């Protein structure tokens, strides 16, 4: 499927582990912003009572956002600087990158909205919340499809 990976371009192993882990906790705590875990017994599972604590899930979601922003910046610049000659984004890579960007951008606006004295119009807040949710659902779906279909996000050039 791909050419043998050139030396020195494998992504730093911690990044490859941290990224799916961060996405998992972001999705878990993100969905936890809706009052569903208590209703549907998930927070009854021993050790998972914190899932029903909106402040805990919010803090973890914010911490995850910090990690995700750091990771995304690192991977983006690393890709541009080191890999462009040897690899490029696949079509599914572009789709996932665009969706992640939409999630991060809308999430950032929600963070700003949550500061004191910040007022957005009613319609704007609802649209923002729904856009963030829709982008997340699309992103998770895209990742699932790519996982099942074994689609890579990067394609190594022939050399």
């Amino acid at each position: 499927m791909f050419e043998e990976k050139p030396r020195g371009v494998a992504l730093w192993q911690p990044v490859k582990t941290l990224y799916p882990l961060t996405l998992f906790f972001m999705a878990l705590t993100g969905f936890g912003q809706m009052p569903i875990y208590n209703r549907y017994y998930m927070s009854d599972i021993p050790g998972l009572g914190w899932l029903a604590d909106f402040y805990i899930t919010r803090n973890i979601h914010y911490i995850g956002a910090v990690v995700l922003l750091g990771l995304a910046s690192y991977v983006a610049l690393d890709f541009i600087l080191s890999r462009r000659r040897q690899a490029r984004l696949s079509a599914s890579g572009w789709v996932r990158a665009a969706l992640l960007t939409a999630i991060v951008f809308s999430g950032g606006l929600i963070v700003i909205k949550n500061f004191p004295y910040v007022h957005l119009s009613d319609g704007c807040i609802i649209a923002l919340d729904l856009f963030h949710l829709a982008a997340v659902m699309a992103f998770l779906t895209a990742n699932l499809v790519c996982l099942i279909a074994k689609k890579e996000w990067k394609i190594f050039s022939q050399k």
Partner: protein
Amino acid sequence: MSASISRRMFLKSGLGAAAAAAASAVPGAHALAAADDRGYLATLIDIRKCIGCEACVEACREANAAKFPEPAKPFPKMYPPRVKVSDWSEKRDVSDRLTPYNWLFIQHTTVKLNGEDTELTLPRRCMHCVNPPCVKLCPWGSAKQLENGISRIDADICLGGSKCKNVCPWDIPQRQTGVGLYLKLLPSLAGNGVMYKCDRCYDRIARGEQPACIDACPEGVQTIGPRKDIIAQAHAIAKEIGGYIYGETENGGTSTLYVSPVPFEELNRAIPKGDGVPHLDPVHDAMADANNLATAMVIAPVAGIAAAAAQFLKTRRRAK
């Protein structure tokens, strides 16, 4: 050796400088410093003057009757079985706690004042926080904060998930099952009704009138005005009587300031507390923990970019 030290130091000091610049640019950071200059309305409640006549409670009900829920029964069955039905429609006269039909009530307490057992009464309702968790954390945007600081729940949009009540330090919003938008979506699986609470008679204020509870009070217990002025007034009274203030800094600041001749710890010990009967506990700023993390969100991309740049330089140096 000296070349690699200076590159590390360059990256470290550059990162530090960038982080400092980024942190100072966090939106809202300077807004916190100018807390009282935003045109928010606040209410001062002088507990000394309240006689517990409940004129305010009656006035609130009358003024807001059109907003009260009229549920259609039977309610759609909700799943799973643990989903609680909140039905106050047959108990509309309950006035000793907050309900969807009673947005203001009088809290009674007996404390020692000047050595004598004295009953003090105080009207309790939504505190209208400066940064209201009910508004900011609603996942759908059903709760809104107006430009004058009033927070209200839009009954046309609210699904009754009760998160607002959960995140409110005083558990203020009250749910009525069987009304609202959830009935048109997936009433068995999502939503539960609509949440109700004091909306500071925002519609009366928009017409230039006062909230109904203030108009009705025969003793002048409540005063409404710009938050800055109300805070100054509260401090002046507290200083004059050697009294105490509640609501100025609780939860990061609210727009409801109580002034009491006895410490609020004493009042809090004496009042019954529970669902619909809010406490007078000290309350830390519930929104601040995560909001403070926003600074790290600005620094994180800088760190990521710096790490990638360092990696690139290292790889290039090795290739040479």
